[in-house]
């Protein structure tokens, strides 16, 4: 099943883990609001999300498996073949064999990291100059797009 990009990892994770991660993210917003917002936004820019972990892990397995298949014989090809299939499954559906494990240890999805970042920006007042005009001008739109830059 092909899921929405933004929520595919969430929909492939147990609800209680999603709730726990969301509660931790909200705790971070409360903690870093007002004082260390700049520093925290910098950390969030660097935070390794689920996609980055999965790309490194799948890349390493396919690389090692393909080299083993070349040097030690074609039977090793089953490993990169399986890893490729799992990566495709992740890209389309969101699930991945290691996803439950990395979610359990607190690796967040791009959506969750973004939610914390944008909540911090909102608390700081980054959106306070955005127009509430129901027919915004091009300048209003540009202001909004600039305000939404992380």
């Amino acid at each position, binding site marked *: 099943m092909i899921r929405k990009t933004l929520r595919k990892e969430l929909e492939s994770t147990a609800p209680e883990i999603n709730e726990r991660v969301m509660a931790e993210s909200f705790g971070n917003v409360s903690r870093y609001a007002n004082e260390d917002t700049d520093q925290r936004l910098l950390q969030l820019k660097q935070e390794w999300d689920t996609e980055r972990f999965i790309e490194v892990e799948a890349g390493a397995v396919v690389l090692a498996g393909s080299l083993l298949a070349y040097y030690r014989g074609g039977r090793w090809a089953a490993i990169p073949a399986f890893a490729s299939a799992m990566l495709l499954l992740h890209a389309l559906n969101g699930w991945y064999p290691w996803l439950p494990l990395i979610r359990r240890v607190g690796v967040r999805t791009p959506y969750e990291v973004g939610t914390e970042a944008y909540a*911090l920006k909102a608390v700081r007042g980054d959106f306070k100059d955005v127009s509430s005009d129901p027919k915004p001008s091009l300048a209003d739109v540009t202001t909004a797009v600039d305000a939404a830059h992380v």
Partner: protein
Amino acid sequence: MISDTLTRVPEHSSDEINQRLREYAVGRVAEAAVTGGGRIQQRLEELESEWDVERGLQTNFAAVTAVGVALGALVDRRWFLFSAGAAAFMIQHALQGWCPPLPVLRRLNFRAMPEIQQERYALKALRGDFSGTEQDPLKAFEAAR
């Protein structure tokens, strides 16, 4: 070199492409905001489904390595080196933010997640989702979800 997660793709794209994608975002936000009504909500849902560059690349790498492995098993084992090379590029992309298919995907208008999010949150802000969220972490967090 290990790049920041959020900026690694725009940093490894040409200024011209980054600029074009920004203009695209401004245009789409303007179109949805001015149309108003249900159009904003509809556009927000489109943005949730938009394939970002990571999703495109993962699909691409899965397909390329699978073909390499199949040809290695069936035609010539040197094809295993082809899939090994593709896998090395995927690791490079994850760490650094660049890989050979990236310029192609960027030219096809695949956006990085932060670029999609920028359009999404600009639209939410214009809709007024963030009014009164200043200095209010709970309200801000609910608005950002």
